[in-house]
């Protein structure tokens, strides 16, 4: 289903035999509306559309020089929309062969992000996914702040059939370190740290994450982001990335109707890959990321 922006873009190019710098401008303006409505960050939209424009004009030039030998098989409007779609897919991708880095004797996954994005639920989903894949995951309840956070992870752990390490009274950096000893003892081969939600501007709590990272050297640091996040996502994602060098991000609540433009912004600004999508509250509702679906959704 094409959004109004897309149809307007195509309309702007109707009646034109070929894409020119002039008529491309009108189409770009329409696509910009679509991207902004999809929550793509303002600066990212601008950079992205400059790239699309450059490519569209570039392609027009090649078509013109080959016009004797080549015939346009689509209308300029459709061609332009195809370029946009293609560029978004390129930006969101590539799809990785292996979203999770594995290491012997165990691999560590650290979940981080703002409050309420779905870290705890996603940690349990990952445990379920890895268990189905024949691995022996362990969950670590490193959120010592939120009321009943440990209970939440323990209940989810029971549901998945995966052990949960908790240590009342320990600071998260110590707790995570102790969890690794426990993992070795219990021969668990994936350790997943569920950390408390925090603001990127909270220096004390961001330092806590840096300390967990320093002591445990996680192989995977996943930033968990809400698909409905707006313009400010770029700021929080770049700050989490700057301080922790995230290895990728997970977009949750994709089962809603948020367009998910934040994904494009985060990818563009951090360069880090999208690993998984959270597509529901159930513990089996986790999918490895594929760019095509998200690209169509962002474009509307």
């Amino acid at each position, binding site marked *: 289903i094409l959004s109004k922006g897309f149809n307007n873009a195509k309309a702007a190019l109707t009646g034109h035999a070929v894409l020119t710098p002039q008529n491309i401008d009108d189409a770009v303006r329409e696509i910009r509306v679509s991207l902004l409505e999809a929550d793509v960050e303002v600066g990212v939209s601008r950079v992205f559309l400059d790239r699309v424009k450059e490519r569209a004009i570039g392609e027009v030039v090649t078509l013109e020089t080959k016009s004797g030998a080549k015939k346009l098989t689509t209308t300029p409007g459709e061609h332009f929309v195809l370029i946009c779609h293609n560029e978004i897919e390129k930006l969101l991708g590539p799809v990785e062969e292996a979203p999770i880095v594995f290491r012997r004797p165990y691999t560590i996954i650290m979940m981080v992000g703002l409050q309420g994005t779905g870290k705890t639920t996603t940690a349990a989903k990952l445990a379920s996914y890895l268990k189905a894949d024949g691995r022996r995951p362990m969950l670590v309840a490193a959120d010592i702040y939120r009321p009943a956070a440990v209970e939440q992870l323990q209940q989810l752990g029971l549901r998945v059939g995966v052990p949960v390490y908790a240590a009342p009274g320990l600071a998260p950096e110590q707790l995570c370190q102790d969890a690794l000893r426990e993992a070795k003892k219990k021969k668990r081969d994936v350790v997943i740290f569920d950390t408390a939600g925090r603001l*990127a501007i909270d220096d004390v709590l961001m330092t806590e994450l840096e300390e967990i990272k320093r002591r445990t050297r996680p192989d995977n640091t996943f930033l968990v982001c809400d698909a409905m*996040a707006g*313009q*400010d996502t770029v700021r929080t994602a770049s700050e989490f990335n700057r301080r922790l060098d995230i290895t990728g991000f997970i977009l949750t*609540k994709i089962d809603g109707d948020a367009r998910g433009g934040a994904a494009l912004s985060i990818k563009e600004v951090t360069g880090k890959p999208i690993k998984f999508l959270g597509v529901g509250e159930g513990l089996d509702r986790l999918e490895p990321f594929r760019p095509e679906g998200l690209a169509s959704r962002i474009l509307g």
Partner: protein
Amino acid sequence: RASLWGRLKELIERKPTIDAALYGQLEEALLSADLGVSLVGRLLKDIRARPATSGGGIDGVRTALKAKVLEALNATGADDAPLFDSGATPTVILFVGVNGVGKTTTIGKIAALCRARQKSVVLAAGDTFRAAAVEQLAVWAERTGSALIRGETGADPASVIFNAVNHAKEAHADIVLADTAGRLHTKSDLMDEIKKVKRAAGKARSGAPDHTWLVVDATTGQNALQQAREFHQALGLSGVILTKLDGTAKGGVVVAIADAVKLKVRFVGVGEKPDDLRPFVATSFVDALFA
């Protein structure tokens, strides 16, 4: 790192005339605050249409813009019934919204506010679905000295709310704060469920709930407008609570919500502690938006 308005101010100082480039910058600043492309387009169009005599240069434009945003925030929606002493007892407030926005935490804060005014509070554990949702609310009940009414895991949330309101009536409690499970407005079975929860409150005490508040996360983009539309259509909302305003997101989508759905913000959440709640003051919000 300079704020967008800060950088804008620099640009403006170097270039005192208002031109297309400046309007482009103003547009970007407003869009960055999540006001949304169609509302921003309208605001700027209205500003450009001002008579030339309204002068004031860039400060004039900024003042006019702030006034327009304030107008959108205030000119809509009835003022909510007062939180306390609205006549009916117990006062019943229903909290709804999508997943993870801060409903349960906000209830804890409102409970603290009520308790500070010597009001007796009953918390209704209407999230019978999510892992440890009831336990989470139980901690807030203990923290604030509020009673907690809960059901079995997986119980019908409508029955929990019904029981809570009845309990509050019998105990002569002042206020019932009803927690509900997070739900995406795109799930029709969950939207049917929340309608049922609202009806159950009305069955337990005629006219309840007195307030139905949509909790919105300040980090949310344009989807919050859709959330407001859907929840309002389903339930008839009486206000919005904007959470997580202690972060860097400005929550500008509430201006779009006020403008399009005619709903006002009642309180803002500014942190995770019991006293991190402020009544919404439109002028301070607009000042922060343009800071």
